[in-house]
């Protein structure tokens, strides 16, 4: 059995129908290929087939310098590109024993929370689209576009920001930054009630998500879930709270925990997280410390021999960067613990026994980004 080719649909001896969903299916958000065993409408088994966009970023990193390997990570989880860059920059800083300047830290947090907002907005729109509501998509993109414009003005790129470098950020913020962020925050706050009117209280939406794709706290932990997917099952796992970095410990925000464990809980968890992100931005936007935006580092970075592990909270969960250094100018081994990979591994468990239509709801609320799964 090869996972490079799509197998033909067929019927097993027990009368189960085997179908292939994806890799080019609109509701799989990228090139995810699911092989599904069905008894009528009921899912008996799901098997994800991966690797359609495996670019071996880990292997590439072994031949890139510590300045360059950061930028490859923008292509992993492209909706949390800035947070991925930040994780790598932090890992290198940890190895060097350098700390980013206070100004850089504040800028990074602001950009990270803007990224989280943009990512959750895209997710919100797509979830609606997956479940048959087309309108939310356009509403979500209204705010997301405004955030992307800030990104473009500040970093020169809308998606692959490449803004974090070891020691700080690549360049200082644009003079308009604070004003534009405040405008976006105001816009988001005004429009959140439209989000709730469109989807949250919608009867059809609630019926399609409540009680669907349930996963208990114990199972969520065993499957290594992280991010909103785990917090919806009551697993406390916010890296910003457990292992604070960049000064998140000095900020006031809540870790959103739900106990439903189903698609609706995951949905509500992300909706609440958006409010927390807005709250974090509001605390920082007028208090960006003055000073240098980048700490001084050597032109050629060489990490001392040893192993460095850095984790951050991306929009989808816990991203871990594990660097093994042998003292050279590029990593000896670089492993990314990607949140999507672990979250996807629980999909067969969640979908078992559900209806085929619910599979789309489960996939949508796990919020998969396939380039991060394949890496």
């Amino acid at each position, binding site marked *: *059995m*090869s*996972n*490079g080719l799509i197998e033909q649909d067929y019927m097993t001896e027990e009368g189960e129908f085997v179908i292939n969903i994806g890799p080019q299916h609109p509701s799989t958000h990228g090139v995810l290929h699911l092989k599904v065993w069905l008894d009528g409408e009921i899912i008996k088994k799901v098997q994800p087939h*991966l*690797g359609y966009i*495996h670019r*071996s970023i*880990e*292997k590439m990193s072994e*031949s890139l310098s510590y300045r360059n390997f950061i930028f490859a990570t923008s292509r992993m989880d492209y909706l949390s590109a800035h947070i991925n860059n930040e994780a790598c920059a932090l890992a290198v800083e*940890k190895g060097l024993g350098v700390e980013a300047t206070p100004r850089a830290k504040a800028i990074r947090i602001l950009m990270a929370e803007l990224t989280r907002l943009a990512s959750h907005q895209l997710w919100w729109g797509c979830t609606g689209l997956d479940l048959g509501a087309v309108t939310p998509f356009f509403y979500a993109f209204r705010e997301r576009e405004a955030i992307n414009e800030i990104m473009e003005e500040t970093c020169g790129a809308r998606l692959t920001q490449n803004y974090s470098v070891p020691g700080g950020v690549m360049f200082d913020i644009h003079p308009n930054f604070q004003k534009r962020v405040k405008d976006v925050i105001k816009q988001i706050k005004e429009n959140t009630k439209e989000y709730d009117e469109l989807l949250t209280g919608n009867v059809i939406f609630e019926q399609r998500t409540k009680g669907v794709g349930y996963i208990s706290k114990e*199972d969520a*932990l*065993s*499957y*290594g879930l*992280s991010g909103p997917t785990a917090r919806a099952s009551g*697993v*406390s796992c916010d890296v910003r709270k457990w292992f604070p970095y960049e000064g998140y410990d000095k900020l006031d925000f809540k870790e959103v925990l739900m106990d439903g464990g189903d698609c609706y809980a995951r949905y509500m968890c992300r909706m609440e997280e958006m409010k927390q992100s807005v709250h974090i931005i509001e605390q920082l936007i007028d208090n960006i410390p003055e000073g240098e935006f980048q700490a001084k580092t050597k032109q050629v970075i060489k990490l001392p021999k*040893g*192993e*460095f*592990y850095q*984790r951050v909270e991306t929009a989808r969960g*816990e991203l*871990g960067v*594990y660097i*093994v250094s042998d003292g050279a100018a590029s990593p*000896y*081994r670089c*492993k990314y*613990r990607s949140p999507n*990979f*672990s979250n*996807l*591994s*629980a999909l067969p*468990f969640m979908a078992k026994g559900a209806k085929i239509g619910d599979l789309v709801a489960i996939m949508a609320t796990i919020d998969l980004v396939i380039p991060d799964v*394949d890496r």
Partner: protein
Amino acid sequence: MTKEELKTSLSTALPSAAFDEAGEFLNVTISPAELLPLMNDLRNKPEYKFDYLFCLTAVDWKTHLVTVYHLFSKEHKHTLVVKAKIDDRVDPKVETVCHIWRTAEFLEREVYDLFGIKFLNHPDLRRIFLDENWPGWPLRKDYVDENMIEL
């Protein structure tokens, strides 16, 4: 438990294990044969209770291969890195831990795909990213591909 307490507690149970405290976490290196009993203890004994396997990977040290398990306990808030040193590069084997932490099922398949380390008793050990008949194990240091470009 702190790093020191973990070390004392583990070294009485595993006299042959090698410890390394230089990094952020406590590292313990053992042989593949000792892995499964140790992992069972780490998960189930109330004083350890490592319930979250957050990273599983491997490193190729040219002379030998090492599988690396990052464990965390949500209750005791301690972290431990377990390493199994595999000397056999031709046919490397180690016991699976995917019945202890189910997240290991996919992570072990990834390690098998890219390093060629076989996980014994794994329920579904197939290559996860690459094609079944892909030649070689790409993340090994001695991997050569005719299309690879030297930079």
